[in-house]
């Protein structure tokens, strides 16, 4: 096999060349190296805590990729993805505890049920646009949150549900490392699917709707159907991630699935870069690590303050810095980490003549 180098100009002659994922074979090589690192190096280098954080990164990345399909590619803003994540988690938990469905079918069912819920909340998009749609998804968030807490015969109310140990074909997933493999296999799968959705006719239709839905309709795209499809795909991703999360943590309460989680998801894709699959992964990594770092710092300072005898609590500053990072990112690099990554790459490529 001969490695193709990057050409010095744009020599593309056919449409297919425009659509390829890897422009040069180096891209393939790097992804292969990445996969080897991901599966054969990282799980043995990191300790239990490192794997715990990485597992969260993987789960949130799946959800963020889904949300990016909806917001970044189709241009429909959803403020309800925190609740959708919760719907997936509850579906899987209820299936596994009440009906004793095995792990794999329940997490897929979590995705499917959430997709159905997402379809319901996507229906207003036939008539509503922009801000009105955004706020109707906000209403969806609060209504679902209410259901999680108050339909206690199904969801266990504020006490939540404790899940049994998950297993795949008799292979019990009882350590962080075993779950790491499961999560990251699904992570790769979901990225592969998303990459291929956005470069085929569905993705093209989504982008057309995002840029101008009237024009898209004029060109013969069934706007409403594609909007619904986008809602369904994106909530499937969110629900699937939620189901994985529930199985991984082993117990769920309504607490985490609040408006704050929806905000976290949107922060991920904005900081990562709207309309970029790589960006969503980078953003999910960034936000999860930031959250983890800030809460570790808060705990650390709490201890010092306790030593000093001060009753001052620094935990709220976590929220302050979270907001600050979002604001600074939006003002100074609104295209997100994906753009930063592109700039770094191109300055390497053009070195020593980059400007």
């Amino acid at each position, binding site marked *: 096999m001969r490695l193709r180098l990057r050409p010095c100009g744009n020599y593309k002659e056919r449409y297919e060349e425009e659509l390829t994922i890897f422009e040069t074979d180096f891209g393939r090589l790097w992804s292969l190296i990445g996969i080897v690192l991901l599966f054969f190096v990282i799980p043995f280098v990191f300790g239990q805590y490192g794997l715990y954080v990485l597992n969260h990164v993987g789960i949130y990345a799946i959800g963020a990729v889904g949300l990016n399909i909806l917001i970044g590619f189709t241009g429909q*803003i959803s403020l309800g993805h925190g609740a959708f994540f919760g719907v997936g988690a509850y579906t899987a938990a209820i299936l596994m505890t009440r009906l004793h469905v095995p792990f794999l079918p329940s997490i897929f069912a979590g995705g499917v049920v959430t997709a159905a819920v997402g379809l319901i909340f996507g229906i207003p998009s036939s008539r509503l646009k922009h*801000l*009105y749609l955004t706020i109707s998804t906000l209403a969806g968030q609060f209504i679902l949150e*209410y259901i999680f807490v108050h339909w206690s015969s199904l969801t266990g109310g504020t006490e939540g549900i404790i899940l049994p140990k998950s297993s795949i074909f008799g292979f019990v997933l009882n350590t962080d490392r075993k779950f790491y493999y499961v999560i990251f296999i699904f992570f790769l799968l979901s990225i592969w699917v998303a990459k291929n959705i956005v470069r085929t006719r569905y993705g093209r239709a989504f982008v057309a709707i995002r840029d101008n839905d009237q024009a898209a309709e004029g060109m013969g795209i069934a706007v409403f159907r594609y909007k619904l499809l986008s809602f369904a795909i994106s909530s499937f991703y969110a629900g699937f991630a939620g189901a994985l999360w529930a199985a991984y943590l082993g117990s769920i309460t309504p607490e985490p699935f609040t408006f704050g989680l929806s905000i976290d998801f949107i922060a991920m894709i904005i900081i990562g870069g709207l309309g970029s699959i790589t960006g969503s992964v980078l953003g999910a990594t960034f936000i999860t690590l930031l959250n983890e770092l800030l809460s570790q710092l808060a705990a650390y300072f709490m201890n010092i303050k306790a030593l000093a005898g001060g009753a001052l609590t620094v935990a709220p500053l976590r929220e302050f810095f979270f907001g600050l990072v*979002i604001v600074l990112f*939006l003002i100074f690099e609104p295209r997100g980490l994906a753009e930063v990554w592109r700039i770094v790459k191109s300055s390497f490529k053009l070195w020593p003549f980059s400007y």
Partner: protein
Amino acid sequence: MDFFLQLLIQGLSIGCLYATAALGFVMIFKSSSVLNFAHGELLAIGAYIFLVISVWLKLPIVVAFIVTFAGSFALGFVIERLFLRPMIGEALIEVIMLTVGLAAMFKGLLLFIFSGNTYVYPNFLPNWLGLRIGNLTIAPVYTATFAMTLVLLVVFGLFFKYSSQGIYMRSVADNQTAALSLGVNVMRVFALSWAIASLVCAMSGIVLGILNGINVHDLSKLGLKVFPVVILGGLESIGGAIIGGLVIGVIETLVSGYFSTSLRDVVAYVVLVLILMVRPYGLFGLVEIERV
């Protein structure tokens, strides 16, 4: 029947508070098309400035009012200049997210300084404000709320109708490009609308403080309650915001009085969804006509 009337009055006064909060929201939206998710935090900041001046520093109430209004007016200006101005021309979601980030910052700071406790104002409202009609008693707070809303409406009505700044603001809301070409300083209008909105927020924050005591979590949750209110009336309509506020306030109090208090927080959103199904642009919103 007495119970119903009592609830109705309570609902109307809470509705007035929602309406004034929504007034500021609609003002920002009309002039600069920014959906402000930090509205509850603006309310809270106003309420806390008042708390610090009147309770902690023990200065007279009049001074507290003046400082609070001046402070929140300036805050609105600063927010627009520092954070919103660089975002002009960016996509909708990014501007929304910026205000969400601002909300997180403010909330974190307020929690850091004041923690999550509930503070109460001293009772400075004179007793003669309380009314008694038959079996019905109206507490002084409620009368004060009604009075404040009325005064605000009259003042803003006059401001928009007669003052030059008010007319500039209306022109920008009506057609930004045309206003710009006629020499209106659009940037200044944006800044002014943020400043006024923040001032209105402080006002309703103080009244809320008298009503329920102030607590960062409650106030920031109230900021989200503004959304059903403004959507009900239509995002662009100030009159709609008032009516929306009253309707949501009354529905909430009736539901919590007759059914359960836990339903109270969610009923506004259910109403919102139902309204949007029938009228996609709210009751008085502008129907957009789009061309390619």
